[in-house]
């Protein structure tokens, strides 16, 4: 689906992290948590390519115009890292965007009875929020959020409002436990009951550590990956990652945009 969208709000929630809410067609409600959208930040040729963002939240709101009734919205949570995201951060209410999506494969929820363990680092928390919203309807959800410092730990209050139990770790100890989030996570994982399931999104080294822990404790684990992308629909093959059978003699590449962005951690090569 491709649609024109209007910015409803674009707020800096932490230094260099923004939460952008925009209008969306009603069909957006069919999105799976973990899917992403490709955003064209402006109609010019620099930056040229769209930027991929995980869906942070979806919902509806009452419009100011009585004849319009309720309208759907889509939210993304992003960090300003380059030219594209810098332009995005300059957008204001009423500005327009061109959106492609939702795209890719999202998270599989698993049995409601099992405990759900969410692990996120920095902007990797974005797709986990919409996931948590769905999971709390039937399961106990724990969130493990990490970052270099307190500014990287985002929207914890929102998760807590959903009833999610949250654990925070920062490299410098400015929020939560000092150290890696995966250390806090392992302590809880060791205590997790049967049917537990892990959902992770964040920087590659963090995902790598989570995938190894999942293997160690024999807990199913889904990871959501980030990649440079051009098309977002599986045509350009620019965003591939190494699959579990990859070697120099037997290459096995998976497309993040189409085969993912959510993968079973066992399907990827982590070394």
């Amino acid at each position: 689906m491709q649609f024109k969208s209007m910015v409803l709000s674009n707020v800096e929630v932490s230094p260099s992290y923004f939460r952008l809410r925009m209008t969306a067609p009603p069909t957006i409600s069919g999105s799976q948590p973990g899917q992403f959208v490709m955003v064209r930040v402006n109609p010019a040729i620099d930056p040229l390519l769209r930027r991929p963002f995980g869906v942070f939240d979806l919902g509806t709101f009452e419009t100011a115009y009585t004849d319009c009734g309720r309208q759907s919205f889509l939210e993304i949570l992003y960090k300003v890292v380059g030219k594209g995201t810098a332009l995005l951060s300059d957008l204001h209410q009423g500005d327009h965007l061109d959106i492609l999506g939702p795209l890719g494969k999202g998270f599989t929820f698993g049995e409601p009875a099992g405990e759900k363990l969410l692990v996120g680092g920095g902007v990797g928390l974005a797709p986990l929020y919409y996931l948590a919203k769905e999971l709390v309807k039937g399961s106990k959800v724990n969130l493990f959020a990490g970052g270099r410092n307190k500014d990287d730990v985002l929207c914890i209050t929102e998760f807590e409002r959903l009833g999610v139990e949250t654990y925070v770790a920062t490299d410098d100890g400015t929020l939560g436990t000092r150290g890696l989030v995966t250390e806090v996570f392992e302590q809880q994982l060791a205590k997790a009951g049967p049917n537990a399931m892990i959902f992770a999104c964040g920087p590659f080294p963090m995902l790598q550590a989570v995938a190894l822990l999942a293997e160690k404790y024999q807990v199913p684990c889904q990871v959501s990956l980030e990649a440079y992308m051009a098309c977002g629909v599986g045509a350009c093959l620019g965003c591939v990652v190494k699959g579990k059978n990859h070697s120099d003699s037997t290459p096995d590449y998976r497309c993040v945009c189409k085969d993912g962005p959510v993968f079973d951690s066992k399907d990827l090569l982590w070394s």
Partner: protein
Amino acid sequence: MTTPNLSVEIAGIKLRNPVMTASGTFGYGAEFAPYMSLEKIGAIVTKGLSMKPKAGNPTPRIVETPGGMLNAIGLQNVGIEAFKAEKVPFLRTIATPVIVNLYGNTLEEYGELTEIIDTIPEVAGIEVNISCPNVKQGGIVFGTDPKAAFEVVSLVRESTLKPVIVKLSPNVTDVVVMAQACVDAGADALSLINTLTGMAIDLQKRRPILANITGGLSGPAIKPVALRMVWQVAKAVQVPLIGIGGIMTATDALEFILAGATAVQVGTANFLDPSAAATIAAGIEEWLVANGVSDIRDLIGALKTDR
């Protein structure tokens, strides 16, 4: 004014309009079907196919640069057998000509692959890739030496009854010499240009951004180079040309047609907007109506260069 004629013919392949998709930017067609009626464009050119599946290059494979992008995908593709089994059934359902882009690792492989593709009735024509800058074999080796190009095109020409289009590289000193060699070898048409070899550097890491170090530059940044090459080649050869290089709008496409192209291929624009090719085709029609041109063919090579 009545509806203008947009149909053109490339080496016997009838196109409802002159807008095709460029190889490597449109998958095998089905990827874009959710976003655009494939019947709105002139032809689809598939991802470059080889005999065996090819894995492509390590990552990162793409990086953006001002007005363009660099790619070093390395011709990742499913191989001819999987193409026949998995991709052709979909292509059979669409009423748009399909052109298969192919490449070989050796001269012989170009011939063998062409013979197989010759037996696929759903394929309207062959585009021979002798110009990929990202692989050692099957690409640039054949595309930069006129003698090697002559040999490979002659072999492909002998191996099929289907129209043969040769895709030229801009990474040569004189594109006209290469074009002439391909035409002499029996090419029915030429498409130009493939990507320009380029590079991007991460200053902080003091490393190239692409794993392959260099990549192929595409997008609006290369349009002036492509236009110049189409214009030069159009003056030198008699076969139809397909213009490629940074075409984002109907205006861009029409400029290529004026320079001498009979049709155009849309590449990088498909990534920005999966319905770009159809939008460009519709825009060409609008322009013809607005400017009182009743037949697109009146514009082919109609560039005025006198002062």
